[in-house]
């Protein structure tokens, strides 16, 4: 069955646990073939939302359709067309990588190319290793391979790189880039901004159970990010007054560093020229463009509108 419409449609979704509103009236659409990153701080409701879409949890109210099917009414059909890497993925301890893939292939009743999946996730050397002997990164790669065993149209990856070292994280990203190139729709839950910025076509930021922003990473940055930042390292203490006289607001950062919010590259040139002219010493500098992390911090550090309602 081919789906020509959106991959996922979430409409007025609520998930409550007693008085606590884990997910509070959210709506969004995930287009077919895109990487949709769902960002939020711990406890914001991103995993709960993902688990409702994955058919693990039942919504309190609202509707969720996956490939045109209501997840609460057609769970059996939905699970055959999605692949899921749950948060903190685990498998049977004494079963090997290859046996685990064979098990899930039998459960789905599909003729999966186990060797191709092992190669895709770079697990060739570990195919005979038991699950309880794998490192965190290898376990996650196996989890991704298992999620792909039924060749699903949508792949859900719930915090696939949490707890991994930078090297293992980059290996997972390489796998995800491969999936993206193959045109899979990917629903990625993460709290790593770098991950979302690198992989996602669309980013939704959830805070306190509500979506506070949704757009492409570039547009979100453009719309919400604070200014460019110039950091001056090992600078003379007199520099702060000098820069302030130019109309900027320098902020001390550490013992002898200054952070200066600027708007344009010309502002950077003006400040550096003034420092050179006055003969002050400068150890080094760093100019940082606005990024998704700043957007995230800005949008999630203050309570979302309507939080008083949540508290009630």
């Amino acid at each position, binding site marked *: 069955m081919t789906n020509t419409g959106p991959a996922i449609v979430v409409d007025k979704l609520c998930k409550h646990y007693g008085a606590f509103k884990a997910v509070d009236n959210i709506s969004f659409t995930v287009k077919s073939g895109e990487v949709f990153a769902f960002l939020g701080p711990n406890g914001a409701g991103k995993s709960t939302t993902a688990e409702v879409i*994955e058919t693990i*949890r039942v919504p309190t109210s609202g509707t969720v359709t996956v490939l045109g099917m209501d997840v609460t009414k057609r769970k059996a059909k939905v699970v055959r067309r999605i692949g899921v890497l749950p948060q903190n993925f685990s498998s049977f301890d004494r079963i090997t990588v290859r046996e685990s893939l064979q098990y899930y292939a039998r459960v789905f009743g599909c003729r999966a190319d186990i060797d191709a999946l092992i190669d895709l996730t770079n697990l060739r050397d570990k195919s005979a290793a038991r699950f309880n002997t794998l490192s965190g990164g290898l376990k996650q790669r196996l989890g991704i391979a298992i999620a792909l065993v039924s060749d699903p149209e949508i792949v859900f990856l719930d915090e696939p790189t949490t707890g991994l070292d930078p090297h293992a994280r980059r290996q997972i990203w390489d796998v995800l880039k491969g999936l993206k190139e193959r045109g899979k729709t990917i629903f990625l839950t993460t709290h790593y901004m770098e991950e979302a910025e690198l992989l996602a076509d669309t980013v939704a930021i959830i805070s306190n159970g509500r979506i506070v922003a949704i757009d492409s990473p570039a547009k979100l940055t453009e719309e919400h990010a604070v200014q460019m930042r110039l950091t001056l390292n090992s600078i003379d203490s007199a520099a702060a007054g000098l820069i302030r006289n130019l109309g900027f607001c320098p902020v001390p950062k550490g013992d002898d560093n200054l952070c200066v919010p600027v708007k344009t590259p010309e502002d950077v040139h003006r400040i550096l020229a003034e420092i050179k002219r006055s003969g002050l010493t400068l150890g080094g500098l760093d100019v940082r463009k606005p990024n998704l992390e700043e957007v995230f911090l800005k949008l999630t550090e203050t309570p979302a509108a309507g939080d008083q309602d949540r508290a009630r």
Partner: protein
Amino acid sequence: MTPRIIIANLGVRLKSFYRERSAMFFTFAFPVILVLVFGTIFTKPEHLNFDLPVQDNSRSEASARLLEALAAGDAFNVTPVPVAVDATEYAKEHKLNLLLVIPKNFEALQKQRVAGPHPGVPVPLTYVHDPSSTAVETKIQLLDTFVAAANQKATGSPPAITLVAASILSKRYRFIEFFVPGIIAMAIMTSCLSNALNMNAELRQKGILRKLATTPITRADWLASSIVYQLILSIVSTVAILLVSYFVFDVRLHIGFWLPLILVVEVIAFVGFGMLLTPFAKEAESASAVANAFLFPMMFLSGTFFPVEMMPAFLQTFAKLLPLYYVNEALRATMIFVDDAATLRAVGVTAAFAAVVFVAGTFKTRWDEST
């Protein structure tokens, strides 16, 4: 229910079981060890004898005849106690629960009893005992029996009444024959209940249940594969118990069509019961506690190790509320008494219990974590 999924689950569970040696030990070796231990203790009670320390203060021909008669029976292994010591202190010091004292004038008293001046006055034998010892009652009873037989013999006339044994069984059975069916029932119950609870808690704790919830596996598939898996373990465990019993203790029990049927019904009953209890055992630690809370009372109150008739009346009534009691009854009815009607009655009660807990257990098994 999908056979393909049941076979896939079965494969994973059997491989996991085979690769975990401790699980294999507790499932197969533990009941076999129980059979070996209890079999060794109780198989040949006629060879059971007790130490009987005797202080012979008489050192006469009469006391020598008495000691000879005591030693001749199978009941006692007579050991001498020094004459010079105080018998009570000696018993305390050497932690003896029974010590027989032959008085110094034993021979003289015997002669007086026969020839006067006080004919018919019995000759006293003192025993020093420790009433807190559990074994002493049996030893005193054996000593009483010995003395009664000696008195009877002394009268010179044949006994007025003798007991003739007539068994309800066509052949003579030993304790081990009654014990083996109980161990089979207990081993299956323990394996089914513990595995159902521990497996579920482990899968839930590790988040594997969450992953399985996003696959086509249904509750019925999972329960069916659990039952087939437990049935395989139960068959292997039962065969191991029967083989050890046969080769080590020469236990020959009737093995007919009822036995596999009882195994199937028991497995369904206790896997279903385990599933029913899973909401109370969400973590590995609580799973063991919940399992033990049900396993131990059933193990000791259902007639596995000793007959229910030995218990007070209220506990006997309670025992009849326990499913394991009926499994024990069914297994003994078919394997010892070869009584089809009694087997059918006990299997019927077990099957009714199995049906109820299986249906309830099916509804209690949750894949998702919705509340």
